[in-house]
């Protein structure tokens, strides 16, 4: 029986959505020896509007390449949230950039994990690495890939000059995710919301 994990990452153009998906896909098939297929939504909107990428991780070759009901949705813009949140599978995982996304209605049983990725990236002096902070956070809270695989995939996916910065960004997001799981995040940044069941 094939075990599939369907992931969608969405935001607006320029946030590094595609690179996040490449890192996750690469971690799955190059650094963990599984199978992964990444697709992305192309179009004029890819330069500023909504942008999304999908990754399917599997223990067997992936046939159908598209994600229809993601197990995990990572969103970095409100528009992307509005479009894609209704598609999350029941009991799936929603990962948000908490300063860019406000959560409202959600499918039943979806666990929400929030990360101030932009602020964490800014702490590193480069707002542009918010996508890799999100990948680190995603890695911690989802647990679908080994952190080392993701960290190696980050290093293998960015230019050498930016490798250290991106490793730090990954670690920052990952640590924040572990703290979130351990309930160590202060109350003013409330995490792990369980959405109300919808009827």
């Amino acid at each position: 029986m094939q075990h599939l994990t369907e992931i969608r990452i969405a935001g607006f153009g320029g946030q590094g959505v595609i690179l996040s998906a490449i890192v996750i896909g690469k971690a799955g098939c190059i650094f963990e020896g599984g199978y992964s297929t990444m697709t992305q939504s192309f179009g004029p909107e890819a330069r500023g509007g909504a942008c999304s990428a999908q990754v399917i991780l599997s223990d067997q070759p992936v046939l159908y390449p598209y994600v229809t009901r993601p197990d995990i949705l990572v969103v970095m813009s409100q528009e992307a949230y509005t479009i894609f949140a209704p598609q999350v599978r029941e009991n799936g995982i929603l990962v948000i950039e908490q300063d860019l996304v406000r959560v409202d209605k959600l499918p039943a049983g979806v666990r929400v994990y929030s990360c101030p990725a932009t602020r964490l990236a800014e702490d590193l002096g480069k707002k542009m690495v918010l996508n890799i902070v999100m990948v680190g956070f995603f890695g911690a809270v989802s647990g679908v890939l080994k952190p080392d695989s993701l960290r190696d995939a980050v290093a293998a996916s960015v230019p050498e000059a930016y490798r250290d910065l991106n490793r730090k960004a990954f670690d920052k997001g990952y640590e924040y995710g572990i703290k979130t799981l351990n309930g160590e995040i202060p109350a003013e940044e409330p995490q792990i919301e369980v959405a109300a069941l919808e009827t």
Partner: protein
Amino acid sequence: MHADPAGVLTGSHFLDGDHACCEGALAAGARFSSGYPITPSTEVVERFASRVPTVGGTFIQMEDELAASITLQGAVWGGAKAFTVTSGPGFSLMMEHIGLAIMTETPCVFVDVQRGGPSTGLPTLPAQGDMMQVRWGSHGDYEIIALCPNSPQECFDLTVTAFNYSEQYRVPVFVMMDEVVGHMTEKVVIPPAEQIEVTPRRYTTIPPGEFLAFEPKDDLVPDMPRTGEGYNVHVTGLTHDNRGYPDMTPAQQDKLVKRLCNKIRQNVDKITLYEADQIEGADVAVVSYGITSRVAQRAIDLARDKGIKVGKFRLITAWPFPEKQIAEIAAKVKAFVVPELNLGQMVREVERAAAGKAVVRHVPHAGGSVHKPEDILQAIMEVAR
């Protein structure tokens, strides 16, 4: 012979089909590409433009696809292995030079990353609507070879094969990708150079003065002269004799055009590539290619779960069409199911080859996305009854 290691990016990579295709071309020895930007194919030449200056070769961006599709042929006669890449609207513009490559027996590779048409259609979304155009789009009678990868790995592998076939048979060979395969990213394993077989150009060893440039060998393919070595070769798109000189008579037309077709037809068993699975004992055979073959596989799995005996036949060479294999299967199964991202192209070939011995059920899709596996499953269930 083996690939030149300089062009081979040995290792495991996470690449999309377009990038993998470029690596396949480099591994096969391509050192020249002339291109014109068009979605969703441009990434192939963008990567080539980035890579080839570190390998020793040339990329030139031309003023249009008419130019792109003939500049590469100049480069081939100059001694390079060369290719171009396009999508529907550009492919339409290239038709004339596909004819030139056929007539002048210029080994070269065209990659078509198919998108929705007609006209500008769906620039960023998939279709498989150029399958008949690639076979018949240029005027006159001819045979070509067209390959249909269904994954980035195959974009690499089959691009190497395309170059090898083009050199072996001196015919333009087409890599018929689609937007999904071109843009999906998966693991691509590029073997060491010594494990990649490449077909060298079939240069003649006969000295200038004695050599007839278009005299066929036993496989109906002539060897090539080198430009700049005193062969005084004459290459023309006109109907020509074995010297390459224009000979516009019905007799020569008959001789030349038949040979150009027969060099493919006679070698069809060596060229045909396909993937068959559980055909024996099947009631239904699903015939598909490219991205549709992966969607179809899910439908096949679902049908098998329901106890239906379904076989799979995947076209890797769409052209020449594997009619012998389809005819054999037609004698065994009740029906074929043929899903494709067009409103009825390769299904006509299946019908022709099946010759009424089995029902042929088309599952059309106008493009823009891929089939829902359920739609293919539905067709399988209906014909299996």
